[in-house]
């Protein structure tokens, strides 16, 4: 009914909307995605200004305050707004500094598996003979072993630590990027523009990286966003098992591992770091979902 009363507005701009503008209009229509973006921006700001915002040092221990509850509980003080852990470190400061590690872990994991995945996937797509088959079989083997188990194995070989944890999680996600790239490459290779470029004398590397790759990016961006969230959880799980970041690093998973034995005595040392992981990952997944809907033409409204 309302539509009849409104004047008909014709599209007046001459040019069609750019993909970026179209994407933004889709993105901003979705409250979940905007919420995810806002939360992630806050987390990025917290990470940048962690030293300024934190009331205390994340690793300094305070002898007068072991397992102090948050300020709203009986016995809590505003000096330690979210309480302290078993050796008197300020929970709020540790959680704020933890944002740095989580963002770092998510970014590095994605960077490693995306870069390697593109190179290996392009190779498998362009050289579909023995090389391609070998690569894909290797990826199948990696996929057969459950992600976390494989990550544990790799860390067991390389030794526990934050760097090795990130490398192992990146290896776990590698097959997804390889498969996506290869499938997209094979789809693109049949198209005329590739043939035209080849006839023009473009070398294989040029064909791979300059001609074909830019047209395969959409699914890779989606996978990268989702891997960012998953990488944070998996690296935290390794930290929880004592294989990731080592104490006293204020990494959220490692904080959970440290405080496990106090689970029945001090709920805040367990609840808060996990909540931080959940919020970060949830924000990432909210954005990833919308990116997938926006960039995957099959699902487009």
């Amino acid at each position, binding site marked *: 009914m309302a539509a009849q009363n409104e004047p008909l507005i014709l599209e007046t701009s001459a040019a069609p909307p750019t993909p970026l503008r179209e994407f933004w209009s889709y993105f901003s229509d979705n409250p979940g995605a905007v919420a995810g973006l806002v939360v992630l921006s806050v987390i990025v700001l917290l990470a940048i200004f962690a030293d300024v915002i934190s009331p205390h040092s994340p690793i300094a221990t305070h002898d007068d305050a072991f397992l102090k509850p948050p300020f709203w509980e009986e016995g809590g003080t505003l000096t330690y707004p979210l309480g302290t852990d078993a050796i008197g470190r300020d929970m709020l400061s540790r959680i704020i500094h933890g944002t740095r590690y989580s963002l770092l872990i998510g970014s590095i994991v994605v960077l490693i598996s995306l870069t390697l995945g593109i190179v290996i996937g392009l190779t498998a797509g362009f050289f579909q003979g023995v090389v391609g088959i070998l690569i894909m079989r290797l990826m199948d083997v990696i996929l057969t072993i459950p992600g976390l188990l494989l990550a544990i194995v790799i860390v067991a070989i390389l030794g526990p630590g934050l760097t090795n944890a990130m490398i192992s999680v990146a290896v776990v996600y590698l097959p997804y990027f390889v498969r996506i790239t290869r499938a997209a490459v094979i789809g693109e290779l049949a198209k005329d523009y590739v043939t035209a470029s080849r006839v023009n004398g473009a070398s294989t590397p040029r064909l791979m990286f300059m001609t074909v790759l830019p047209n395969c990016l959409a699914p890779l961006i989606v996978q990268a966003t989702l891997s960012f969230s998953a990488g944070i959880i998996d690296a935290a799980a390794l930290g929880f098992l004592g294989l990731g970041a080592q104490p006293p690093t204020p990494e959220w998973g490692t904080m959970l591992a440290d405080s496990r034995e106090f689970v029945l005595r001090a709920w805040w040392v367990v609840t808060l770091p*996990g909540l931080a992981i959940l919020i970060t990952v949830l924000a990432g997944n909210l954005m990833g979902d919308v990116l997938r809907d926006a960039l995957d033409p099959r699902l487009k409204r």
Partner: protein
Amino acid sequence: MLRFVFTRLTLIIPTFIGITLLTFLLVHAVPGDPLEILAGERGITAARHAQLLHDYGLDRPLYLQYLVYMGHVLRGDLGLSLITHAPIIDEFKQLFPATVELSLSAMLFAVLLGLPAGIVAAVKRNSVFDHGVMGVSLTGYSMPIFWWGLLLIILFSNTLGWTPVSGRIAVEYDIEPVTGFLLIDSALSGDEGAFRSALSHLILPMIALGTIPLAVIARMTRSSMLEVLGEDYIRTARAKGLSPFFVVGVHALRNALIPVITVIGLYVGSLFAGAILTETIFSWPGVGHWLVEGINRRDYPVLQGGVLLIGSVIMVVNLSVDLLYGLINPRIRHRR
């Protein structure tokens, strides 16, 4: 159909070889001398070292060592644990039913809640219920389960005192193992207290492990149902006057279930990964707990054998899902 089965069967051979290569290299890539780890703090003379090197075949070329390892694996010999000196295959066999019991219950929990939730959300699209299911599902999907398990312990074991914190059954019950599943064995024993104890021990780990599959199944069912509900044959079914319940429950659900079943099958691998964390939190005596202990004690043969066995189990499960899928969906079977 036979040809389909045959191609799928031959495809798992390279995968199996890949897994054995990985587990073989795992032990060889570990820094440090395996014999010195074996000897422990007592140390070892150079002559004895050379002798042992020869005895264990460690002085032979790598590919020969791999072939020997492969021979042992094919005969079911996965070596001995460095700590308990028990055969690894026996330890695995003893602990595996606990992991299967936990994983199956978690999957059952996820399916029983996730399917109806997804169906109702699709039928009542954009309702409060739909948004609620999708919100909870996204949260569940983003949940670090090692934290979720601890939260459940804080709430149900500590604050409410409803369930025990860890283990499979209270120590006073000694149940004769028949199936290896304590829930079934305790029911068979006729001891109601034992059954209740087993059940109360199982509930929290089951929820912790089942949460992510629950979220995935609810989302998948909803989107699959939405797709199917828009099809022409659903409109036809409605037009000829079938009751809405019949249209949704029979015509739509049957077709919507195919992708959901695939997802459930493919989720088995992730369940094992989740079981490692869940078993660690709840001290559940399964293979996940065993593996983590093995890592902490640097018991590399346990890690090697455990990864090989779990990888093989998942390989077989994936193959079965593949074959089953080919059975219910002829289009897959005839595709080359």
